[in-house]
């Protein structure tokens, strides 16, 4: 006896809490154990079991139960409970689509009825494929976001393990499925199919088949957009998000390793400022270093045979007296020339310079005319250009 669909919907609505409990158990364990089912029925009312059987919503598996796949998928849809499917599961569409496409192409001029059935089946497969990919991407994104938000406060090591697991078993294989450049990918095959269908929708001898090709073509165009969108979510959001979890976990691994032994690990070098303060302990050391540079530890040895060299000592009083005796002198440097020659027979530069210090004596008056030409004075070492300076007694002396 066929059950009125509204009865099933009403039943689902009325006992939704119990049905959801059954759904959750099956989602977690893959099956509803007899004990779990009994507990749920006891809570919700024992008649539920009878009605579930009557409406063919559950079936017995050994002594246990399961919700029928169609009902389970319906609940999954309304509850948005999509678990990521393994890419191997999605790959089954590769086989079915490839096979249907091959048969359509090979038997394109065969029986039109079977051709139309195959076109419709192909459309269903493509639709299911896209839907599965969409659910998978969204559920992976949800799982990854939950992992990133770390709502369960799991340890960072477990977090990186889970991230690696999602990447290796779900995300990267899904990426391969959506990779157009891979000739074996489903999406690549859909492109070829689209090209073929486009050709046939424009040029085919049977009107009904041509219409079916037209519908399939429109669907494939939409499929293309949908898959492109999924691919973008995958590459722009999912992969960076999961890569971020990995990077952050690596950084945390480093910091946690460091915190285990913060005072023994080699750290990045920073600049240590040098500050000198009168109260600093460095002052004593620095002062000592400063004073030591003036301490001459080398022994001084005086040689008995040392004759004192020919160091000339300027007897200022003697030469001043000599000068004063001859004042006024019209040309001081001529006087130097004559005096040095008289005293030493030659003119040495240092002796000449020593004599020039007499010019700074306060009791001598100097006169100097800038217009006068400079004269040359030859010493043993140099030829000097000297001015003409007149010297006379200053004041009453």
């Amino acid at each position, binding site marked *: 006896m066929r059950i009125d669909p509204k009865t099933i919907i009403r039943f689902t609505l009325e006992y939704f809490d119990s049905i959801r409990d059954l759904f959750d158990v099956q989602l977690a364990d893959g099956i509803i154990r007899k004990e779990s089912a009994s507990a749920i029925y006891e809570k919700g009312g024992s008649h539920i079991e009878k009605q579930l059987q009557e409406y063919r919503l559950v079936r017995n598996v050994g002594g246990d139960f399961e919700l029928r796949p169609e009902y389970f998928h319906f609940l999954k849809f309304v509850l948005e409970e999509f678990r990521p499917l393994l890419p191997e599961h999605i790959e089954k569409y590769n086989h079915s689509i490839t096979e249907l496409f091959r048969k359509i192409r090979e038997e394109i001029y065969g029986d039109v009825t079977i051709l139309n059935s195959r076109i419709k089946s192909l459309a269903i497969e493509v639709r299911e494929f896209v839907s599965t990919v969409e659910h998978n991407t969204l559920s992976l994104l949800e799982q990854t976001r939950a992992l990133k938000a770390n*709502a369960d406060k799991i340890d960072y090591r477990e977090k990186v393990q889970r991230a690696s697991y999602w990447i290796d078993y779900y995300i990267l294989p899904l990426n391969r499925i959506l990779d157009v450049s891979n000739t074996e990918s489903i999406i690549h095959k859909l492109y070829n199919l689209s090209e073929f269908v486009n050709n046939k929708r424009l040029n085919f001898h049977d009107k009904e088949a041509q219409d079916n090709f037209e519908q399939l073509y429109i669907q494939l165009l939409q499929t293309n957009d949908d898959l492109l969108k999924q691919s973008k979510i995958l590459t722009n959001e999912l992969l960076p998000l999961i890569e971020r979890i990995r990077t952050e976990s690596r950084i945390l691994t480093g910091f946690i390793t460091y915190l285990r032994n913060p005072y023994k690990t080699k750290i990045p*070098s920073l600049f240590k400022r040098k500050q000198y303060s009168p109260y600093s302990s460095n002052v004593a050391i620095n002062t000592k270093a400063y004073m030591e540079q003036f301490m001459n530890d080398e022994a001084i040895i005086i040689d008995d045979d040392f004759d004192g060299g020919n160091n000339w000592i300027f007897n200022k009083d003697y030469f001043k007296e000599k000068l004063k005796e001859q004042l006024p002198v019209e040309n001081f440097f001529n006087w130097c020339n004559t005096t040095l020659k008289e005293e030493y027979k030659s003119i040495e530069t240092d002796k000449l310079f020593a004599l020039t210090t007499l010019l700074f004596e306060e009791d001598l008056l100097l006169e100097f005319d800038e217009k006068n030409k400079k004269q040359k004075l030859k010493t043993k070492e140099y030829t000097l250009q000297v001015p003409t300076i007149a010297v006379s007694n200053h004041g009453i002396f």
Partner: protein
Amino acid sequence: MEYSKNHRQIVDDLMAGKFVLATNKNFLEIKEKENQYELFFKASFGHDLIVKNDYAFLCSEETNEMLSRDVCIFFAILCYELDKDGRNFLDLINYSEFEYASINEYFDNSAYIEVIKNNSKLKDNASRAEFLDTLHRRNIIDKTGNQKFVFTAVHKEYIDFAMELAKAKTEESV
């Protein structure tokens, strides 16, 4: 060596232990005369000048350099606590403003409370405020208000440090 216009300022800043940030006009001068400045600091003071894409700084290989150690501990604990709180710590450190109060909350409730209590610069709110002032003077953080700050690009130095440690740990376990 032909000295740049801001030579004195550059030397004063670097010798004061500051990081010269790319946002500072002096950074461009350092970058343009990188080799000259490297030689200058090495020959004059025996210090190494490090010039990165976002900042430049001097470093001295002194084993009793404690600030860097405190900064490492500070970053390590902050990143750990932010992650534990489910936050994107890299994003936060890169782009967000922090308040002293939230930092204090993370540190006061940290799993690493023993490390914190044994560190004179991080042990309580007052020490941490002083520590953050030091970081500000060194251009590791930029104070945006009395009790607020953002991290400068210098934080990368410590993130790289953590990455290197993690790499070493992985290689060790292989």
